[in-house]
């Protein structure tokens, strides 16, 4: 019987590689993290997600980690901190996935494969919302919305990362979400899509 060996995580090296300008170096860093996939996901699946969802969450967490390392939002302090940080991102994504399923189920929609909410709307509708996010609501609002509603970060975690108070982030988070929803509501086509969905649930 044989089994793959899992090399130990050399965190400082991984960070150095991910920050490198050379693509080949970055890929080495990712390969070292991917080698830890099973270890990093072990005991994390508190919501009993299926393997496909869990694997997507792992890659999404990697995707977020990469961005954070590149823009210096992660500061390496001691051994184990990269692993702990990665766990926090995975936990946030898992909790986010569960929230999206609950939100879909609130209207009686059974979550299909992949994202529970995206399957409810057409590609065109989602593109129009993306345009609002990119062009209308402003960079600060976009950042807070992405951290809370995409990365699944708690208000406290966002406050720590951005060096602001929890109260400010809490207000900004719901204020920015309202702003986004108001823009969607002002778009007649999107409004019609929602009304059609209310009249003809999937």
């Amino acid at each position, binding site marked *: 019987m044989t*089994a793959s060996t899992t090399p130990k995580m050399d965190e400082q090296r991984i960070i150095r590689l991910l920050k490198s300008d050379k693509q080949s170096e970055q890929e080495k860093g*990712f390969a070292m993290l991917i080698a830890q996939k099973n270890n990093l996901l072990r005991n994390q699946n508190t919501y009993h997600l299926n393997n496909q969802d869990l694997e997507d969450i792992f890659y999404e967490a990697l995707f977020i980690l990469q961005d954070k390392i590149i823009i210096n939002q992660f500061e390496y302090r001691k051994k184990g901190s990269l692993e702990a940080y990665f766990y926090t991102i995975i936990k946030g994504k898992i909790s986010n996935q569960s929230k999206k399923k609950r939100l879909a189920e609130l209207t009686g929609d059974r979550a299909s494969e992949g994202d529970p909410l995206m399957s409810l709307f057409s590609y065109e509708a989602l593109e129009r919302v993306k345009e609002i996010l990119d062009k209308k609501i402003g960079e600060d609002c976009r950042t807070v919305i992405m951290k809370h509603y995409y990365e699944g970060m708690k208000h406290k975690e966002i406050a720590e990362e951005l060096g602001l108070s929890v109260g400010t982030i809490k207000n900004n988070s*719901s204020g920015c979400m309202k702003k986004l929803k108001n823009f969607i509501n002002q778009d007649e086509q999107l409004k019609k899509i929602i009304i059609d969905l209310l009249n003809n649930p999937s």
Partner: protein
Amino acid sequence: MTKYTEIIDKYLDGEMSPQEALTFEQQIKTDPDLAYEVRLHQLAIAGVQHSEEARFQEFKTRMKTIESETKDETPVVRLNPKRSGAVRWAMRIAAVLVPLLFLYFLFPFSGNKNNPLAATTIQLVELHTTSSRGDAPSPQTTLLDEAIQSFQQKDYQAAIASFDQIIKTNPDQRATALYLKADALYRLGKKTEARNTLKKVLNEDDDALKTKVREVLDKL
């Protein structure tokens, strides 16, 4: 519009009491403004996910390529190399002791040897774990998982709050939740309340559990 944003977030963040959550879920069916806003919220969140989707899919493809390339290079190790006699004996002893230790730590419920409810609690938890394995998660299974987790961590008050929510909202799991709630009350020293809760199981449809409850009631 958008006046319900905080309320929807509160519901999704699990910050509502079970009663509040239930009222909120009912309100969606009767309040067209709220129903509209829930759809609006769904579209907003879906749009947020979509805004990163193209970049993410490209990234994922790149990661999959890296993963498949590195898999071929991963070294392998024999799990059964030739070992000395002493090592083989040590491994045999470990093979007996490790499962026993595993069982001891797996079932923290069994710590209370004088608790007449403990044995059935272990069976109910095992049954739930086995039957929900591989199922698509639902709010009900998640809630029972959370309740059991609180119970295992000896946070009986939190476990009772979750069991109460299940009792109110999910007839399929009501008998199990009532029994486990009774055990939690018993562990908090509330024996009369435990007994009264246990009696309510007798009104449910689960005949096997009712038989167990009658046996336990005689010992309480």
